């Protein structure tokens, strides 16, 4: 009679499973020789392949050793050449630029601060091209157009201050907002000039409201302002320009 799996009374199911499973574990004698021979062949193949790949692997290892060195050289080059060049050009981020400027100042090398670098990088605007003697010619002045060269003033005002940033002797130059240094706006509005209507106020930042407008260089021109200037009577020379300047000031 076949032995029942239940031959051990009181045995838990898991204990019975473990017992039966252990008894059921087969032997491998009938297949061991074949399997071990296959393992031996595999080991021989692996040794042969490993020996054949050894020079290639050593080359790879050499190249792999070179790669980190190349990266290190590139990092040193960047630190010694590229970064200082960028600092001198002032194109580093602001905190880095300031730190570089302070550090370089300790060793006597001038490295611009971010603010200075920004100033020098800003395009130089010819704020004032005429001196205080220049009088507004009353000519209609078109809106500044980057593509249209500004007409030169017959009075030679265009020749004044042609070198940006370098004032002529005796020239009073205001800042880019048209404010002449030394006090409030030295308005040069012509007596009797009518102030321009608010509608004609330029939308752009007022430019040199205290100066006689320069047909060649006024920045306050806008289509409305230019229309106002063009409609100004001939007698009120400089009035329209001044008016536009005044309105701009307002």
């Amino acid at each position, binding site marked *: *009679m*076949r*032995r*029942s*799996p*239940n031959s051990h009374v009181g045995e838990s*199911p*898991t204990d*019975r*499973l*473990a017992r*039966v*499973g*252990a*008894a*059921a*574990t*087969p*032997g*491998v*004698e*009938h*297949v*061991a020789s*074949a*399997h*071990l021979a*296959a*393992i*031996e062949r*595999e*080991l021989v193949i*692996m*040794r042969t392949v490993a020996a054949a790949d050894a020079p290639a692997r050593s080359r790879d290892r050499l190249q792999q050793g070179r790669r980190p060195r190349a990266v290190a050289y590139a990092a040193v080059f960047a630190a010694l050449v590229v970064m200082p060049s960028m600092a001198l050009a002032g194109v580093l981020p602001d905190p880095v630029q300031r730190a570089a400027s302070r550090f370089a100042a300790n060793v006597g090398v001038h490295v611009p601060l971010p603010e200075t670098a920004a100033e020098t990088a800003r395009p130089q605007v010819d704020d004032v091209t005429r001196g205080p003697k220049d009088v507004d010619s009353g000519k209609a002045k078109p809106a500044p157009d980057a593509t249209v060269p500004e007409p030169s003033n017959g009075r030679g005002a265009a020749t004044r201050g042609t070198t940006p940033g370098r004032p002529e002797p005796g020239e009073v130059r205001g800042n880019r907002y048209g404010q002449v240094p030394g006090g409030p706006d030295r308005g040069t509005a012509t007596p009797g000039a009518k102030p321009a209507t608010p509608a004609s106020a330029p939308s752009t930042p007022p430019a040199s409201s205290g100066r006689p407008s320069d047909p060649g260089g006024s920045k306050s021109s806008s289509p409305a302002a230019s229309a106002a200037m063009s409609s100004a009577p001939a007698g009120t020379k400089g009035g329209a320009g001044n008016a536009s300047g005044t309105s701009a000031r307002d």
Partner: protein
Amino acid sequence: MDPSPPTDFQRVLEAARRGEDGAWRALYLAHAPAVLGYLRAQRAVSPEDLVGEVWLQAVRDLHRFTGDEGGFRGWLMTIAHHRLLDARRAATRRPVEVAEEAGYTAASSEPEAVEQVGAEQDLHRLLDGMPERQRTVLYLRYVQDMSQREVATLLGVSTPAMKMLQARALRALDRRVRELDAADAQASADAGVGALPFDPEGRSRH
């Protein structure tokens, strides 16, 4: 802290990494029966062939293994499990007609071999009717004595999921054991009614 001295298994493992045949023979003889038993418990069609494939892969990938002897056995079982799944997928694509059911015959006529086959049949009776994953969990946990984490890794599930699977498998095993006990008791009762005074196999009852 002084490193613990290398165990026998560690020495054998290092020798196997160097490609020594004797080390591989020792590892094979120590762990191949468990691998074959697992594949047979899972009713693999050609378990001996799969065992050979498992060991060839172990030879190729030994450099990836680190751990103790229990971990090595779990690693072998994982390879065996994957090979079993691959074989089943291949069998579904190319059905192979099996001359007889995968019930294994004894390798020899020796009593130990016969007893082993009998135990194997009993094992199948215990595990039959269960889903494959439950069979896997029960066999690896209670026959191969693998840890929950190792079994979870083998199955590709989390440890909590494996615990739930194990709980369901234990309930199924409990039901199965009661069914078998009831069936055996009925069979014994039926056999007792028509029992012969002697055992047809020549063994005396008294």
